[in-house]
Each structure stands twice: as structure tokens, then as C-alpha cells.
């Protein structure tokens, strides 16, 4: 009995599946040719200015941040050096 029900179900799926597919909207035609970036539709094109500005801003911030970090570390060490040299002189 169960075997018969499974066979009927398989038959229905095979018969009805193409019919259900036929009711769906047609697939868009696939692109099979190279499209230059300049000819892409506007919604697909990426604007250049934000990328260029981000690149230059990052470079400036990274260099500036590093210079500030170096200056801060140098100041700390310079103070420590002066303090130690004063201690050494006092110890003489």
C-alpha cells in the first residue's frame, strides 16, 4: 500500500513540476559577453571619489598618528633619561 502511494506521489511530482515551472516568470537572459566597466549600468558603477579620498585620508592619518606616537614615546623616554642623569649626578 505504502509502496503504491510513493509511486503515485513520484508520478504526480514528475507530471506537475514542469507545469509549475511554466507558471514562473521567464529567466533573464544570461550575459555571455565581456562588458567594459565604463559601459555598466549606473547602479552597477562604483564612484571613484570616496575611494580616492579614503586612500589619501588613511595615508595621512597613518603617518600623522605614527609621528604623534613617536613624539609621545620620545618625550616620555627623554624625561626618564633626564631624571636618571640627574639622579646619577646627585649620587656622585
Amino acid at each position, binding site marked *: 500500500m505504502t509502496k503504491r502511494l510513493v509511486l503515485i506521489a513520484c508520478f504526480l511530482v514528475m507530471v506537475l513540476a514542469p507545469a509549475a515551472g511554466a507558471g514562473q516568470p521567464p529567466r533573464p537572459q544570461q550575459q555571455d559577453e565581456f562588458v567594459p*566597466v*565604463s559601459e555598466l549600468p549606473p547602479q552597477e558603477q*562604483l564612484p*571613484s*571619489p570616496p*575611494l*580616492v579620498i*579614503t*586612500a*589619501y585620508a*588613511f*595615508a*595621512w592619518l*597613518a*603617518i600623522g598618528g*605614527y*609621528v604623534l606616537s*613617536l613624539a609621545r*614615546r*620620545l618625550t616620555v*623616554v*627623554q624625561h*626618564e*633619561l633626564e631624571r*636618571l*642623569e640627574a*639622579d*646619577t649626578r646627585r*649620587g656622585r
Partner: protein
Amino acid sequence: MPKWFRPAAVVCFLMLVVSPVLIANAPFESTMGLVQKIFYYHMPSAAVFLFSALLCGYASVRFLVSRDSRHDRLAWAAAEVLVLFGAITLVTGPLWARKAWGVWWQWDVRLTSSLMGWMIGVAYLLVRKYGGPGADKLAAGLALFGMANVPFIYISVNYWRTIHPTTNVVPSLPLSMGVPFLFCFAAFLLLFVLLLKLRLRLEEHRARVDELYLALEDR
């Protein structure tokens, strides 16, 4: 600081300030347009990144052979500059690539080997900071790998099929693009020398502090 440092720092700052004006006035590249202007900072920073890796490796070899701490200090300073300019290269590159290639990143030989070189620099700094006793020699070993990677990064685009342009781009630049490029290149080279000198001074001060602490303890 040496006498030349301050004038050189002023010149370098002015060059970096003027560079965006020259870049803005340079002509647009015909296929990529505006985004190609990232090149004027991307390529000099990449060159300085490779110089730093070579210098770090060279100083490390000298240190391993002679055990002279001056070479070790130079290697450490170069490693920090390497990480800075490597980061600029690896951030500006994908920003350019997203528009030019349509992807942020491509696991091709040039990009992957550059990332490896930068990670070796980061590993060097991490070993120096957290490695404990003997970290100087361990880090020097790492720097050798970083130095060996440099020729591989440079020639990779000429020997393997890659999406990255070859090394023939710079010599073939027209004068209108070559002048701003050389200006930026000179500014970055000067910046490299200045940052290296400043970082080296920090290490020299630290070494002096250590000496004084030892001298005070011995009393």
C-alpha cells in the same frame, strides 16, 4: 638631533602638503580615470615598505654576525617603518583595486607575498615586545625571511600570471604623470629617512636609560 633633521622635516612636510595639488593637476589615466590617482601614494609607500624590509633584514644579519646592538636598534626601527608603510600599501591597494578590478582583494602572487611581508614585520614587532630574553635574535631570524621575500614580491608580477600591473609601468609613465610621481616618491623617501632617524633616536635613548638603571643598581 643632527643639524639637517629640522630643515629636512620642514621640506618633507611641505612636499607632502604640495603633493595633493600636483596629483590633482596630473592627467587622468584613460581607462581607470580618477581612481588611478591612488597610485601616487600607493607605489611610493610600497617602495618604502620594501626598502624597510631590506634594511631590517640587512641590519639583522649584521646584528647576528657582530652582536652589535646598534644594528639591532636599526633593524627594530626599520621594522616599525615597514609596518607603517606596508599598512598604507595594503589599504590603498584594495581601494584602487575595487574600482579597477571589481574586487577588493585577489589572492595573486604580488598581493599575497606583500601581505606575507607585512605580517612578517608585524610578527617581528610582536616578538620584540612580548618575546622576552633572546627575542632580539629570534626577531632577527624573522627579519631574514622578510628580506628574502622582497625580491619575490618585486619580480612576482613579471614571472607569474597576475592581475597586478608589471614593473614596466613606472618607466613608461608620460612626463605629466612622471613628475608628480617622482615628487611623491622623493617625499616618501625623505619621510622614510626622517621617521627612521626619529625611531632610531628613541631606541638610543632607551638603551641609555637601561645603561643608567644598571649603573644605579651597581652602586
